[in-house]
């Protein structure tokens, strides 16, 4: 029983992070139909930038929470610039190219960013300095930390804010209109270039936030961390119905919980043949099952006419 509760809590934490990253995939896909495979690397860069800022401020005598906030803020801004730059340099010139071209470019950008990060931050694991004094709470035989609470609460707040932005504001309406019909949105005077840039910028900001969360949670960072994280978040976006924002949030949480439960019970299920380090298979099993039986995802309306 306590394994169940424990893994649900861990899954919720992980799911909150997946949801934030999945939103970055889904917003871009919803508007231009591109799967931005470099998004995982944007998240990684966010973690790395936050790491650098925090380490260089660590000895300054500033309060730890302020250091963490500054690190987060700078990471978010850096990733916004990076996301904007990616769109401007790599994807915009290919706007009218065949669909496969920007997709391959995205994979290329992903490799470029990984290597740049390796050059700057090295090929070894980096210890992310813990800035919050960890407190552990016990509820019903399961334990969780204040870091986990902060991750879940912050993710929830950001997602509420984003929903408001997209549903209620002039900019959000322009984004939804562009996602549904670019030509008509143009005729209404919507500046498509701006809307597309915004999707990248907002998605990258969310990615940076998620990257800082991962860094604080696992207290470790690596130049290749964006690959697996990005793939999982992409799975979450597909699970929820890619292009659908509510779907990305739900898909992220669901995937986090599936994965945590899988990791918690895989030993029992296989007679200890497979251990919890096999948890990654659950995410990809989910991806395969969704693609086979419901390619439009849980919330998706449009079928996969775009690749």
């Amino acid at each position: 029983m306590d394994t169940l509760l424990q893994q649900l809590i861990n899954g919720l934490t992980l799911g909150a992070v997946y949801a934030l990253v999945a939103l970055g995939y889904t917003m871009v896909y919803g508007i231009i139909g591109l799967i931005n495979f470099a998004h995982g690397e944007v998240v990684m860069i966010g973690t790395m930038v936050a790491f650098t800022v925090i380490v260089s401020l660590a000895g300054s005598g500033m309060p730890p929470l302020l250091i963490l906030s500054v690190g987060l803020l700078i990471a978010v801004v850096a990733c916004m610039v990076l996301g904007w730059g990616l769109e401007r340099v790599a994807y915009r010139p290919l706007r009218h190219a065949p669909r496969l071209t920007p997709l391959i470019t995205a994979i290329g950008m992903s490799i470029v960013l990984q290597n740049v990060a390796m050059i700057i931050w090295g090929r070894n694991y980096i210890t992310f300095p813990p800035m919050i004094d960890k407190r552990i709470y016990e509820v019903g035989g399961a334990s969780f930390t204040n870091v986990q609470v902060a991750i879940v609460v912050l993710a929830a707040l950001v997602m509420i804010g984003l929903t408001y932005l997209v549903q209620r504001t002039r900019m959000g309406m322009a984004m939804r209109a562009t996602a549904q019909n670019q030509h008509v949105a143009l005729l209404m005077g919507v500046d498509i270039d701006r809307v597309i840039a915004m999707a990248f910028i907002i998605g990258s900001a969310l990615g940076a936030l998620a990257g800082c969360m991962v860094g604080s949670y696992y207290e470790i960072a690596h130049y290749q961390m964006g690959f697996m994280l990005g793939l999982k978040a992409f799975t979450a976006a597909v699970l929820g119905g890619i292009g659908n924002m509510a779907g990305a949030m739900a898909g992220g949480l669901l995937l986090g919980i599936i994965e945590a439960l899988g990791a918690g019970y895989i030993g029992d299920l296989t007679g200890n043949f497979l251990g919890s380090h096999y948890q990654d298979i659950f995410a990809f099993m989910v991806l395969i099952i969704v693609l086979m039986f419901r390619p439009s995802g849980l919330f998706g309306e449009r079928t996969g006419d775009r690749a």
Partner: protein
Amino acid sequence: MAEQRQILLAAHEVAKHFGGVKALHDVSLTIHRGEIYGLIGPNGAGKTTFFNCLTGLYRNEGGHFVFDGVKLAADAPHKAAAVGIARTFQNIRLFGNMTAIENVMVGRHLRTRAGVFGAISRNPATRAEEAAIARRADELLHYVGIQERAHDYARHLSYGDQRRLEIARALATEPKLLALDEPAAGMNGTETEALRVLVEGIRRDGVTVLLIEHDVKLVMGLCDRVAVLDYGEKICEDVPAVVQRDPRVIEAYLGG
């Protein structure tokens, strides 16, 4: 000079072909301020192609448009909107997953300015502007007579209401010229009559109307002047009474 100032839109020898098919063959016409101008012709005559060239969805190969004294760029739909041309579509193109009022609010985009920083910071100017957008959208829904459907998804509206919503959305851009592509298509008699009243009201409120329509009776009753296209060529342009009796027009519609 007085004549010059009266002209809102002048098309000069506009040409467009698709492969070997000449969809538009040097079409010239002038639309005066404040008139309802009809563009008719058999199926495939090039009416919608003309619209698409005018609004920048297609790039015309020859000729050009002068709108309100300014030559239009060939392929920039949002510029067409910015100078004051709004259109509806023969096959309705609403944002189906947005509510009726949201569709109209998107139309206000062009005439408002709040950016993303306003959206995030929620400063008073942005809030006031967004309130004004919502208010104006509500007025426009009232104007076209579908105010009570404001919060329904556009795809759930009846066909006639969708047509009205498209007109409200086009009007939200504050156009000088409203181009309607077969607005009465698929409408019954009552709906068509209501549409006629609406279009006359729009003209009375100072918007020039360009109307493509199959319903000849509606065009003849509503338009001040009519041009007839056939196989991509303008074969006639005059007041309805004259056009109706023109032998080339009768030939185009009944013969061949």
